[in-house]
């Protein structure tokens, strides 16, 4: 009883000891803040990494292929039994994306993924990261009328945007045609009035007005045919002309590409065997779009900080715009192929690495483009098989099972790894960072421990006579010792408790604090343009807090052991005589 009473009284009367545990408080608070923020980052990162990567994947090199993917999936399902939830086949290839920005070509490298729209969303967190809310619920590669992020695009996305763009394009073309015909008419009139000029201007032209009329006749409403060549290289060059593709021109390109519509030509001996072209079969950019492609948001989005400090989003390309992708076929002699696509949505996982490079096409489309479909069987090959496991399945065990099923000596081209294997360098770097930070911060608390030791030693010296009195009154050495151990423990508990409260409050209001610091110092603490988080993520882990508290209190108690031992060893007579 006297131990508690005296510990309490010393706590109440020795403020210097309280000062010595401020460092414990600060250490504990810092540990909690650092751990929470780091855990928040790691958690977000892991979620995203895991969401994008499937649990386990079997992949091969990008210019190679896994044939008979259905057979593979069957074997995998047999091997894994009820551990597997879903598997999906993916084709991965590097490609070039080019599109028109203010009349110039913008070309950049992308990682093109051909995905199966049935199963891909079940294996990875793909759909939640789409910006279109309709697509998030029912995924397709079609351009949507509605559902695009109003805040991001301000309505300039989707079918309406596409129609407006094409309408404007057509009007510009109509205007320029009108201008051309006006110019031609004026010129015709000029040459008709003064035929002598014609002679000097051109020796080859005859003087007949009819011929002159033909010479300067207004251009037809549609541009002359480009004969179908069937050579993708030439086609590519044609569609890559520096001028933006006009709607009609691209319509005709498409018509010649897909082979179902053919112009009746007098030079085509088989013309009569081909189906007649109906107007509704023609590609109309107002109603139709090209192969749907989903781009990583960071490919298009540019976050710009205005002088006022506000962030403004700018877009190089929007849903509804067309873009070209250029990639190579696989096989013995890779050839470049170009495909015209329509951006149907953006993918925004907030992992910059992925958002700035990923683009998604329908699997069959990409297989076709890359020549991955076996002409004999009509079966496509893939480059990756991604597997999602049921909750609670052991990733590493599953990987080992799959490696046993596809032994590396028979399948040297297969790479079987879990998502953690893929991101191991990053995850272990973060883990090590956190460990080192924790060690350093605990050293701060240990330093505080030495402060407590020194203060307590002084208090024991100061209290020597009181210790003598207690011993004279029959208090055992152990009791005297426990006064000071209890004192140390209560100080440590108070310091840790206050530290936990401060730390948790700091974590709770961390974004407000960051803003306040930014206002005070004029220095942005947390720049969303760098981290792609709109605010600092935090995760408070009760286990961490528990261990931090235990550690801090243990340090305080350990620091009071030495003074307490000294107190216990005091000789009562000498202690009583001490002045």
């Amino acid at each position: 009883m006297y131990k508690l009473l005296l510990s309490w009284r010393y706590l109440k009367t020795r403020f210097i000891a309280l000062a010595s545990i401020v460092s414990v408080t600060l250490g504990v608070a810092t540990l909690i803040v650092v751990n929470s923020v780091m855990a928040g980052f790691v958690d977000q990162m892991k979620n995203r990494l895991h969401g994008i990567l499937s649990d386990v994947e079997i992949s091969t090199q990008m210019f190679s292929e896994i044939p008979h993917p259905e057979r593979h999936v069957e074997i995998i399902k047999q091997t894994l039994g009820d551990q597997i939830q879903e598997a999906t086949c993916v084709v991965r290839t590097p490609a070039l994306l080019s599109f028109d920005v203010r009349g110039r070509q913008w070309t950049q490298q992308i990682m093109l993924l051909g995905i199966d729209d049935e199963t891909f969303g079940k294996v990875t967190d793909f759909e939640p990261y789409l910006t279109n809310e309709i697509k998030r619920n029912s995924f397709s590669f079609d351009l949507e009328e509605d559902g695009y992020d109003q805040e991001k695009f301000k309505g300039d996305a989707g079918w309406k945007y596409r129609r407006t763009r094409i309408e404007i394009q057509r009007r510009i073309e109509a205007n320029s045609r009108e201008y051309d015909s006006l110019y031609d008419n004026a010129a015709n009139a000029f040459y008709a009035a003064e035929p002598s000029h014609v002679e000097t201007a051109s020796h080859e032209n005859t003087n007949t007005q009819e011929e002159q009329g033909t010479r300067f006749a207004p251009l037809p409403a549609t541009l002359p045919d480009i004969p179908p060549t069937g050579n993708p290289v030439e086609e590519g060059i044609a569609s890559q002309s520096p001028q933006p593709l006009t709607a009609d021109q691209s319509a005709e390109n498409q018509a010649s590409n897909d082979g179902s519509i053919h112009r009746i030509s007098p030079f085509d001996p088989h013309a009569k065997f081909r189906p007649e072209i109906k107007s509704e079969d023609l590609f109309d950019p107002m109603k139709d779009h090209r192969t749907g492609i989903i781009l990583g948001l960071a490919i298009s989005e540019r976050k710009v900080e205005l002088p006022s400090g506000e962030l403004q989003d700018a877009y190089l390309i929007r849903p509804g715009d067309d873009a070209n992708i250029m990639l190579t076929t696989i096989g013995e002699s890779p050839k470049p192929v170009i495909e015209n696509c329509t951006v149907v949505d953006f993918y925004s996982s907030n992992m910059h690495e992925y958002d700035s490079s990923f683009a998604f096409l329908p699997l069959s489309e990409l297989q076709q483009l890359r020549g991955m479909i076996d002409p004999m069987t009509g079966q496509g090959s893939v480059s990756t098989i991604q597997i999602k496991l049921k909750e609670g399945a052991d990733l590493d065990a599953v990987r080992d099972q799959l490696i046993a099923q596809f032994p590396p000596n028979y399948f040297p081209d297969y790479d079987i790894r879990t998502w953690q294997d893929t991101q191991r360098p990053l995850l272990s770097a973060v883990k090590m960072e956190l460990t080192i930070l924790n060690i350093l911060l605990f050293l701060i608390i240990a330093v505080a421990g030495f402060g407590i030791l020194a203060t307590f030693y002084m208090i024991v010296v100061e209290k020597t006579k009181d210790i003598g009195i207690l011993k004279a009154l029959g208090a055992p050495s152990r009791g005297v010792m426990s006064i000071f151990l209890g004192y140390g423990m209560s100080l440590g508990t108070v310091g840790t408790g206050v530290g936990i409260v401060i730390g948790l409050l700091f974590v709770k209001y961390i974004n407000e604090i960051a803003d306040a610091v930014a206002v005070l110092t004029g220095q942005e603490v947390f720049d969303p343009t760098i981290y792609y988080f709109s605010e600092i993520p935090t995760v408070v882990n009760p286990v961490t807090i528990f261990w931090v508290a235990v550690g801090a209190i243990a340090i305080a108690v350990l620091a009071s052991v030495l003074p307490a031992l000294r107190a216990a060893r005091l000789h009562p007579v000498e202690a009583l005589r001490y002045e």
Partner: protein
Amino acid sequence: MSDVAPSNPLRIDRESKGGNMPATELHSAKSSSSKYNSAPLRIADTSVMSVSGLFKSYGKGAVQVPVLKGVDLEIEEGGFTAIIGQSGSGKSTLLHLLGTLDAPDSGEIYFRDQRIDNLAPRQQEHLRNREFGLIFQFYHLLPELTTLENVLIPRMVQDGFFRYLKNKRSYRKRAIELLEMVGLSHRLTHKPSQLSGGEMQRTAIARSLISDPSILLADEPTGNLDSENGAEVMETLTALRKHENLTVVMVTHDDQLASQADRIIHLVNGVVAT
């Protein structure tokens, strides 16, 4: 006495020493706080403590300063014994040895026919807490605690947490009673720094009596007080001695104070002067 195992240090047959008190077991000696009721009158010439051949020197190695050089004495039950002597005559050291605060170099100390100078620390602590009431020249109150808490400290030391809480009410009652007896009932919540020297010493006296000790060891209780306060403290002590039927051993260098005692032991140069 033949049924007592001689190996038990707590049971010592002292018949050969001439004592006529039966050997008592230390822990059962004070099993009841109403021992004065059960044994109200003790024969005055029975010794409660006896000391034989006590030697004690201070210092280390070659520089040994002998303080006690063979002290023999008996302290009578219910008596008021004064030990007087000059400064440095070893009287305080003798009192510390009697109170088991220090161990003698040689010699034996008996309390109720039990040798106490070589007991285990735990048993000595028990003795100091229950059997001996200690009063010091410099009061030795704990500055952080109030008067009442200071008086209660021996009880707090004695009981565990829950037992103390259980008995708290009776302890408080007794402490307030004792403080009333020493005339400090109006000072219960004062800290020692707010008390005068005489008041502090009277608090110390109350503290020494809280465990109902059988012997009061006072080391110059008035040594630090002016004559008026000193007289007051002595009055209190004398009144209490009679009221509680206490055995008192008082060390002093004041012949006048010593004259109030039943018996005076002169200590000169570490031996008892005859």
